[in-house]
């Protein structure tokens, strides 16, 4: 029942926003809807912790600890972004960003805000669906759904560059997803020979996982490769990452934040589901090797672009490439530590990343540019809150203690060692150090320095609240993780470990 609720709430919110066209109403609807959604997600988690798994419509929808975690994170991100979005778009309106392209002749875009407030819930809906769908085919459909919804977010501002970004995103995403679909079909095929032609359940994860051991090995290998490339594209793993910087720097901040966390989580979720199958069928080594290669490659690719970067919106994208690399690497390291580390990292990343986007958004709206050399530095004087938060969240995201990402990275490192990947661990650390250095140099040049004499910003209540709230969560998470949340993560780890 609760599963249905989780799916319906965003749909209603979207519909409502589509029908009631007045801005305040849409804002209220949006925020409340996502607040409710988050509440439901929490309830779901509680239920999962009690009962282990929930399913609906004879297992068409199915939620275990892993999916509950993803739902929770998606809902959290959605809520944070919806609060921030209010302030963000009001600012945009004040700056007259939407004026120049009123005559958008797409048949259902009437008004920009309406477009946003209608699309976001759909976007979130499909994210939730990803987590709740038991059927791997539906999972694919849902992820495709997130792509379609987010394409519109990317082309939101209708600039030439946003169209370009949207095109690249759509095409690359499309290719990626068709690879994923191919992989899904092959999985079905390899299962098919075991399960026979049971039409619907044949793609149900809960059924597949049971007898993954007897699947046809060769098919499963091909399937996993395709899935890795496919969902890897969505997760932005090198060398399929190329769409990310463009998309992230063009989408409106809240949308970008959801792309960087929600979609990333969904893609990784899909990857993990198949990883479980493949490791049951082929043993963990096959998957691990590929995952480690791609994970390290992503981190390695992210490094130089972070070191020499002109645009702080693109900087964020590369950071998220780096983080997806870390998570994939952790998955590759495997073992209880690695998987725990991966899920912890997913959690902490989704909690921390939005704040980075918010700070960047504030700065961008304040300076009317996203280029470093056009920013004169010394933002701390004109926007003390955002500036300080920016520095803090930079440190947090680059994995320095006491912030929570350090815990997960430490765990992942331990996993690497206990997996015997000594040299790889050294690579991991040196990449992390380089990324830290690059990031900090950029952000410090932005935040610190003599007062350039800009007018004071940081006035909007909504933006302040979202940033402060999130910052508090980030700091607290460094020292205290709610026990049920950790329990959930541990149980999810158990699921990934097998069964």
């Amino acid at each position, binding site marked *: 029942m609760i599963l249905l609720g989780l799916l319906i709430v965003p749909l209603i919110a979207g519909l409502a926003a589509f029908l009631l066209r007045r801005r305040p109403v849409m804002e209220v609807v949006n925020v409340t809807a996502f607040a409710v959604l988050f509440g439901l997600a929490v309830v779901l988690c509680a239920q999962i912790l009690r009962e282990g798994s929930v399913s609906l419509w004879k297992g068409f929808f199915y939620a275990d600890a892993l999916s509950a975690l993803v739902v929770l994170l998606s809902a959290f991100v959605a809520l944070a972004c919806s609060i921030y979005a209010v302030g963000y778009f009001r600012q945009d309106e004040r700056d007259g960003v939407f004026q120049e392209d009123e005559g958008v002749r797409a048949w259902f875009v009437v008004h920009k805000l309406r477009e946003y407030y209608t699309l976001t819930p759909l976007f979130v809906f499909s994210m939730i669906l990803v987590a709740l769908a038991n*059927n791997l*085919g539906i999972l694919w459909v849902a992820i495709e759904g997130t792509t*379609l919804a987010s394409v519109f977010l990317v082309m939101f501002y209708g600039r030439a560059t946003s169209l370009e970004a949207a*095109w690249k995103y759509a*095409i690359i995403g*499309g290719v990626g997803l*068709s690879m994923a679909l191919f992989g899904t079909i092959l999985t*079905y095929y390899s299962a098919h020979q075991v399960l026979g032609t049971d039409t619907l359940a044949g793609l149900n994860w809960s059924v597949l996982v049971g007898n993954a051991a007897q699947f046809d090995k060769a098919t499963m290998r091909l399937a996993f490769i395709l899935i890795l490339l496919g969902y890897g594209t969505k997760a932005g793993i090198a060398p399929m990452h190329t769409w990310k910087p463009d998309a992230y720097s063009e989408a409106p901040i809240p949308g970008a934040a959801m792309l960087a966390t929600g979609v990333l989580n969904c893609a990784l979720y899909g990857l993990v589901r198949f990883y479980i199958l493949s490791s049951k069928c082929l043993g963990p080594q096959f998957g691990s090797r590929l995952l480690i290669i791609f994970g390290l490659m992503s981190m390695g690719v992210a490094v130089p672009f972070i070191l020499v*970067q002109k645009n702080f919106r693109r900087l964020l994208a590369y950071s998220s490439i780096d983080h997806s690399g870390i998570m994939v690497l952790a998955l590759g390291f495997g073992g209880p530590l690695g998987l725990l580390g991966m899920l912890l990292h997913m959690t902490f990343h989704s909690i921390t990343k939005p704040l980075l986007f918010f700070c960047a958004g504030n700065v961008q709206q304040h300076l009317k540019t996203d280029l470093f050399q056009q920013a004169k530095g010394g933002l701390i004087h004109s926007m003390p809150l955002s500036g300080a938060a920016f520095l803090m969240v930079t440190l947090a995201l680059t994995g320095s203690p006491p912030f929570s990402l350090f815990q997960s990275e430490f765990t992942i490192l331990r996993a690497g060692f206990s997996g015997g990947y000594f040299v790889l661990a050294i690579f991991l650390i040196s990449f992390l150090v380089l990324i830290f250095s690059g990031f900090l140099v950029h952000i410090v040049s932005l935040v610190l320095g003599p007062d350039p004499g800009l007018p004071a910003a940081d006035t909007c209540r909504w933006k302040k609240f979202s940033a402060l709230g999130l910052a508090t969560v980030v700091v607290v998470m460094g020292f205290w993780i709610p026990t049920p949340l950790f329990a959930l993560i541990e149980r999810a780890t158990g699921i990934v470990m097998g069964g």
Partner: protein
Amino acid sequence: MPYLPNPELGNRIITLMAALVLVLQIAAVGQRWLISSIRIFAVQSFLLGAIAAVIAYFNQAEHIYIAALLTVFVKAGLLPRFLERLVKRIGIRREIEPLINVPLSILVAGCLTLVGYVVAESFYHPEETSARAALGHNTLAVAIALFLIGFFTMLNRRKAVTQVLGLLSLENGLFLAAISLTYGVPLVVEIGIFFDVLVAVMVLGLLVFRIREAFDSMDVSKLRSLHE
């Protein structure tokens, strides 16, 4: 007792049609005129529908008929119509020279077919010489080839529309695989996929249109303002 068609015959027909589909795909690689490459796609999709129908007929799998109908309706009817309208509206008729010139591209397509067979090789279990395994082995090779060639056209052609076409024909490869290996994925999924493809094409079409507006060209290799 109902009439039981001979699956052997079915397999022959299917393999033949699959081969035809592949030929069409390679032909599309060499094609210059937008309209005609759209048409080629339409024919190809129709053939796929037919394959689905044949499979459905020879294995009494009713739900595949639906898939077949959907294919014919959506991929051979709706999408080509939509794309042709788009092309007419934009008023571009010829594809500019692809990145790799035509003869070479065709050569590459051939190699990709080879790759498809090489990969499919590893699925061939000679011990179980059931007709179906053989069929699977054959059609899977074709499917992979279709997929790769579609992919290749995407990164070879410069026009936005042809990239969309490439994406679609790549989807065709998937469909072939799905239909011939497993007699179609569950119906719900099938419908979901079709819906997604439809929407995807709509979205892409919209994008093509607006790109055309913004850049007054459909040459996506000109989209290079976002870079490091």
